[in-house]
C-alpha cells in the first residue's frame, strides 16, 4: 500500500509546479493571468462605459449581455481550466493512472458523461438557443411521444389523433402554462446550475483553504478562536438562515451564491486545518522547513497540493447540496422568479401538475440526475484517491 | 503425553483463497500433530502460511473467500466436517486462540471484563455474578494486578503486555485442551515477551494443554518448543523434535533459518530472495529458487515427499530421497552431527542487500 504513495500524482507532480512558482510564474499562472486580463478589461468596460441596459457586446453588434455573475462564472471557469485541466494534461502519467482507477466505477463514468452534457449545455446552450418565449397560444404542449386530451393545450402544435394532442419534436419536453419551451428552459437552467456549482465552490475553497491553513499555522489561542468560529458557523440552522436572509434582503442569483458560500465553508476549513496539521508533522515538510522554506512556501508547495485531491472531492460533494438549496428556495417562491432555474420551473409547474405533469417532471428528473451524478462522481473520486480503502478488503 | 492418539492431528490440510487474481494457495497439503501437554511450534517467514494453517484448524478464516480441505482430527473428531454450530462449541471452549496483536484483537468498545465473560457465557450457562467471579479469578491468575477493579476497564487502558495477558485469560475461560497462539509475543518488547512465555509455560502445566505456537522467532522456539514444524510457502519443509532439528537441521531452508540466529554466528541480512508468488508457486520444491543446493530434480514435479531422516524427523528435500545424496546438504550443515561441519562456521549465505 505504502509503496503506491509515489504513484499519487498530487504528491509528486504538483511540487515541481510550485517550485517553479517560487521564482517565476508557472505556465498555469501565466495562462491564467493572460486570460483574466481581457476578461477584467471587458468587465471594466461593461461597468464603466456601457449603459445599464446596453448589452455588453453591442459594439460588435451582438445582442448578448453579460451580468456581473457571468464575469465571475467565466473567471472560475478559467481557474478550473488552468489549475485543473491543464495540470492533468501536463502530467499524462498520473492522469492515466487516475483515469484507470476512475474507469472501474461505471456509474461514475456515466455520471461524468451526464455532467459533461449539463456543462456543455449550460455553457453553449444559451449562445445558440434563443431564450424561451412566452406564447400563450401554444401553452401546455405535451412532450414528444406522449399525448394529452385535446382540450389541455390552447392549440395543438402536433397532430390531433382521436381527441388526443400528440407531442412534437418542436417542443421535445412540452411547453409550460405560458407556452415556453420546457427543453429550452432546462438548458437555460443548466447555465444557472453550473454558475452555482462553479462560483460557490470557488468561494468555499478560497475561504476554507485560507481559513484552515491560517488556523493550523497560527496555532495556540488564535487557532482555538478560529476553530470555535468554525463551530459557530457550522451550528447555524443553514436553510433557515437562507430563508431569512434571502427573504429580508431579496435574492437574485448572486445573493444566493454569496449566502450559500458564507455558510458552507466551515467543514472545508476544519478539514484543511487537520490536513495541514497532519502534513506538517510529516518528514518531508520538516525537511523543507529545515532547508529554509517559509510558511507560505510550505503551504503553497506541500499542504495545498497534498490536500488538493481531497479538497476537490469535498467540493464535488458540496455541489448537490447547493443545487438542492436553490431548487428548494425557488420552489418556496423565494428568490428571483426571472432566474430560469430548474427550481423555478418546478415551482411554476406545480399548480398544473395533475394535467400537465411534464412541467414538473422534466426539470425535477434533470435535477435529480444531476445531484445523483455529482454524488456518484464524488464517491468515485473518494475511491480513486484512497486505493488503500479497497486494498484492505482484498 | 504418550497417548496412542494425538490431541490434534492435521493431515493434508490445504487452504485456498479465491481472489480477483485467481486462486491463492496459502497452505498446501500440510501435516502436523499436537499431543496433550506438548508445545508444537510452526516456524517460517512471514507469508509462509503458518497463520492460515492454524486458523484453518477451527475454521476461523473467512469462508468464502477461503476454502479448507484435508482432515483436522481433534480427539478423534474431524473438525472440518462438523457443522458450524458444533464447531462453535469447540471454539473458545476446547480449542482457544490468542493472536499476534492484542491491541487489535480486542474490541475497543467493550470492557475487558465484558469480553471475557462473553466467551464464558456463550459456552456455559452461568449467572453474571459467577461469570464475573471466574473472570476476575482468571485475570488474577494471568497476572493482572488488582483484577476485580480492572475488570471494568477498557482495553486501551492496559499496556501491550497486559492486553496479551487479558487475551490469555479470555482464552482460558473454557478450560481448553488446545491453545493456539499465533505469534503472541511478536508485538511486545523483549522483557514482556519473556514474561508472557513464562506465563504460557506455567499455564500449560496447570491446565494440561497442548499448545500450537506460531512464530518466526527461532529464539522463542528454542525456549518453548517440544517439536517444530518448519513451513515455507504453504508447504512443510521439515518437522520433528526441536533438539534434533536444532542439532541436525535437515532441510536447507531450516539450515538457513538457523543461520539467521545470532547464536549460530549470523551475519545478518537473512536469506536472500523472496517468497514465491502464492498465486503461481514454482514447480518442484518451493524453496528451490532460493536454495543453494538446488538441482534440476528440485525444480520439477511436486514438492518432494517427506523422508524420515532420523527418528521422528521428516524432511521434504530431493537430496534425501531415492537417488539423492544427503551429504550434499548435510556436509555444509551447521550442526556438529556426524559430519565434520563446524558449528557457527562461515555462513554460506551472504548478506542480502535487496
Amino acid at each position, binding site marked *: 500500500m505504502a509503496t503506491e504513495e509515489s504513484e499519487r500524482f498530487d504528491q509528486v507532480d504538483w511540487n515541481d509546479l510550485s517550485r517553479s512558482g517560487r521564482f517565476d510564474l508557472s505556465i498555469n499562472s501565466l495562462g491564467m493571468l493572460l486570460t483574466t486580463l481581457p476578461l477584467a478589461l471587458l468587465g471594466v468596460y461593461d461597468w464603466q462605459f456601457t449603459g445599464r441596459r446596453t448589452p455588453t457586446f453591442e459594439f460588435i453588434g451582438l445582442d448578448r449581455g453579460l451580468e456581473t455573475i457571468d464575469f465571475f462564472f467565466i473567471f472560475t471557469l478559467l481557474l478550473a481550466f488552468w489549475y485543473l485541466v491543464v495540470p492533468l494534461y501536463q502530467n499524462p502519467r498520473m492522469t492515466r493512472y487516475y483515469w484507470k482507477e476512475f474507469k472501474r466505477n461505471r456509474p461514475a463514468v456515466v455520471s461524468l458523461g451526464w455532467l459533461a452534457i449539463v456543462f456543455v449545455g449550460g455553457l453553449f446552450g444559451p449562445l445558440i438557443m434563443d431564450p424561451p418565449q412566452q406564447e400563450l397560444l401554444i401553452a401546455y404542449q405535451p412532450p414528444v411521444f406522449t399525448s394529452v386530451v385535446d382540450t389541455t393545450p390552447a392549440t395543438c402544435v402536433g397532430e390531433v389523433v382521436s381527441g388526443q394532442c400528440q407531442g412534437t419534436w418542436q417542443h421535445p419536453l412540452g411547453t409550460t402554462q405560458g407556452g415556453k419551451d420546457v427543453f429550452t428552459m432546462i438548458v437555460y437552467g443548466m447555465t444557472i446550475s453550473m454558475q452555482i456549482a462553479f462560483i460557490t465552490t470557488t468561494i468555499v475553497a478560497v475561504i476554507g483553504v485560507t481559513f484552515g491553513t491560517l488556523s493550523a499555522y497560527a496555532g495556540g489561542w488564535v487557532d482555538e478562536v478560529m476553530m470555535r468560529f468554525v463551530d459557530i458557523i457550522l451550528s447555524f*440552522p443553514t436553510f433557515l438562515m437562507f430563508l431569512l436572509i434571502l427573504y429580508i434582503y431579496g435574492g437574485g442569483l448572486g445573493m444566493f451564491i454569496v449566502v450559500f458560500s458564507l455558510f458552507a465553508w466551515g467543514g472545508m476549513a476544519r478539514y484543511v486545518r487537520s490536513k495541514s496539521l497532519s502534513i506538517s508533522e510529516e518528514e518531508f515538510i520538516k525537511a523543507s522547513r529545515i532547508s529554509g522554506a517559509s510558511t507560505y512556501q510550505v503551504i503553497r508547495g506541500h499542504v495545498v497540493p497534498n490536500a488538493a485531491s481531497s479538497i476537490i472531492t469535498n467540493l464535488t460533494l458540496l455541489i448537490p447540496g447547493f443545487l438542492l438549496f436553490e431548487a428548494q428556495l425557488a420552489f418556496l417562491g423565494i428568490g428571483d422568479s426571472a432566474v430560469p432555474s430548474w427550481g423555478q420551473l418546478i415551482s411554476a409547474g406545480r399548480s398544473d401538475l395533475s394535467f400537465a405533469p411534464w412541467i414538473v417532471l422534466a426539470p425535477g428528473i434533470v435535477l*435529480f440526475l444531476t445531484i445523483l451524478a455529482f454524488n456518484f462522481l464524488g464517491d468515485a473520486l473518494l475511491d480513486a484517491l484512497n486505493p488503500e480503502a479497497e486494498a484492505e*478488503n482484498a | 503425553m504418550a497417548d496412542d492418539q494425538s490431541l490434534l492431528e492435521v493431515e493434508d490440510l490445504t487452504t485456498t483463497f479465491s481472489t480477483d487474481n485467481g486462486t491463492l494457495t496459502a497452505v498446501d497439503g500440510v501435516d502436523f500433530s499436537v499431543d496433550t501437554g506438548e508445545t508444537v511450534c510452526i516456524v517460517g517467514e512471514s507469508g509462509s502460511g503458518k497463520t492460515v494453517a492454524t486458523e484453518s484448524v477451527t475454521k476461523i478464516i473467512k469462508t468464502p473467500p477461503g476454502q479448507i480441505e484435508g482432515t483436522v482430527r481433534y480427539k478423534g473428531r474431524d473438525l472440518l466436517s462438523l457443522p458450524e454450530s458444533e464447531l462453535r462449541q469447540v471454539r473458545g471452549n476446547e480449542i482457544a486462540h490468542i493472536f499476534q496483536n492484542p491491541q487489535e*484483537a480486542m474490541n475497543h468498545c467493550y470492557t475487558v471484563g465484558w469480553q471475557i465473560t462473553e466467551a464464558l457465557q456463550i459456552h456455559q450457562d452461568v449467572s453474571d455474578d459467577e461469570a464475573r467471579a471466574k473472570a476476575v479469578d482468571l485475570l488474577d491468575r494471568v497476572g493482572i494486578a488488582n483484577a476485580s477493579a480492572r475488570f471494568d476497564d477498557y482495553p486501551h487502558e492496559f499496556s501491550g503486555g497486559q492486553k496479551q495477558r487479558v487475551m490469555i485469560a479470555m482464552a482460558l475461560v473454557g478450560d481448553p485442551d488446545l491453545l493456539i497462539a499465533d505469534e503472541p509475543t511478536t508485538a511486545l518488547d523483549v522483557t514482556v515477551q519473556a514474561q508472557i512465555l513464562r506465563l504460557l509455560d506455567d499455564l500449560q502445566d496447570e491446565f494440561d494443554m497442548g499448545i500450537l505456537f506460531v512464530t518466526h522467532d527461532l529464539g522463542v522456539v528454542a525456549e518453548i518448543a517440544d517439536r517444530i514444524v518448519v513451513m515455507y510457502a504453504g508447504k512443510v519443509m521439515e518437522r520433528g523434535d526441536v533438539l534434533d532439528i536444532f542439532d541436525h537441521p535437515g532441510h536447507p531452508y531450516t539450515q538457513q533459518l538457523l543461520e539467521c540466529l545470532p547464536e549460530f554466528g549470523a551475519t545478518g541480512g537473512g536469506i536472500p530472495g523472496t517468497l514465491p508468488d502464492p498465486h503461481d508457486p514454482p514447480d518442484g520444491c518451493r524453496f528451490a529458487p532460493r536454495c543453494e543446493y538446488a538441482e534440476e530434480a528440485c525444480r520439477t514435479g511436486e514438492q518432494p515427499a517427506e523422508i524420515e531422516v532420523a527418528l521422528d524427523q521428516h524432511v521434504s528435500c530431493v537430496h534425501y530421497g531415492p537417488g539423492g545424496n544427503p551429504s550434499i546438504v548435510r556436509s555444509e550443515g551447521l550442526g556438529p552431527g556426524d559430519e565434520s561441519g563446524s558449528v557457527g562456521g562461515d555462513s554460506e549465505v551472504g548478506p542480502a542487500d535487496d
Partner: protein
Amino acid sequence: MGFGRYLSARVLWAGVVSLIIVTVTFLMLAAAPNPAVRQAATQAALQGGDPAAAAERARELRGLNEPLHVRYFDFIQSVYTLDWGWSVSRSQPVMEAVTQALYYTAQYSIPWTILTIILGPLVGVYSAANMYSWKDHAATGFAFFGYAIPNFFFGIILLLVFGVWLEWIPITYNTGVPVFSVENAIQLAIPVFVLVTGSIGAVMRVSRNESAEFQNADFMKTAKAKGVSPLRAYAYHVMRPTLVPLSTTLVGQLLALFLGASLLVEVVFAIPGLGRLTYEALIAQDTNLVLGTTLFFTFVAVIGNLIEDLVFTVLDPRISYDDR
C-alpha cells in the same frame, strides 16, 4: 477532566453559540427595513397623510426608536424568558403558535426519526455483511436514490401518483383526525416515507462503510475464535463500534433534514407544522413569528449538536474528555 466538567463545558458552549446565533438574527432583522413601518408609511401616503410622521409613529409604537443596544437587551431578555411576543398574522402569542405547530411536526418527525435510526444502521450493516452482492448493490442504489432525489419533488410525485391518480391517500392534510388512528397513519405515511428516504441514505452509507472496516477487524476473528455466532458478532462487535462514527452523521443528517426538508415537505403536504408556520410567517411578514420559529430551530440545532458531541464522547470509550 471528568465527564461532569466536560458536560458543563459543552452545555456552556452551546449556550454561547445559541446566544451568538440569536444576536446575528437580531442584527439581521435590525438592519432590514421593518415591513410594518413601511406599511404604515405607505398607508399614510395613500390616505394623504405624512408618510414620515406615520413611519415615526409606527417605529415608536414598536420601540424601534430606542438605541440599538437597549433593543438588543430587551430582545435577548424576551428570548430567554420565552416571551416571544405577539404574532400579528395569527393573532395569538408566538409561543402558542409554535407549540401548536410543534404538535403536528412531532407527529411525522417522531416516526421518521425512529425509522431512520433503526433501519439505517441495520440495512447498512447488512449491506456490508453481504458486500458486493446484489443485496448490497440494491441497498446502495436505494441510498443514492434517497439522497439524490429532492424531497419536495419526490413528495409532489408521490402525491400525484397516490393522491391524485390512485386516490389512495387524501390530497389535503386533515387536522381533525386523532393522532393514533388509521386515517392519520395513512395521511402521514407518504411524508414519513419521503423523509426517511432522504435521511436513511447517508446513514446506510456510513454504517456500511464503517462496519465494513469493523467486520474485517482482528477482534471479529477473536470473537469467532471464542465461539461467538455470526449474528451475535454483528449485533455486538460490529454494530457497537459502528455507532461511534455513525452518531456524528446521524444527528447531523436528521437535523439538516429537520431544518430544511421538513419545511418543504410540510408545504407540499399541507401539514400545519413548524416549517409551514415559518414559511407563512415569512410570507405574511410577521416579524415576531419569523423570529420565534427561527429561534426555535436554532435551539433545536444547538441542542442537536450538543447531543451529537455528548453521544460521540459517551460511545467511544477511548476518547478522554481532555481532548475535546
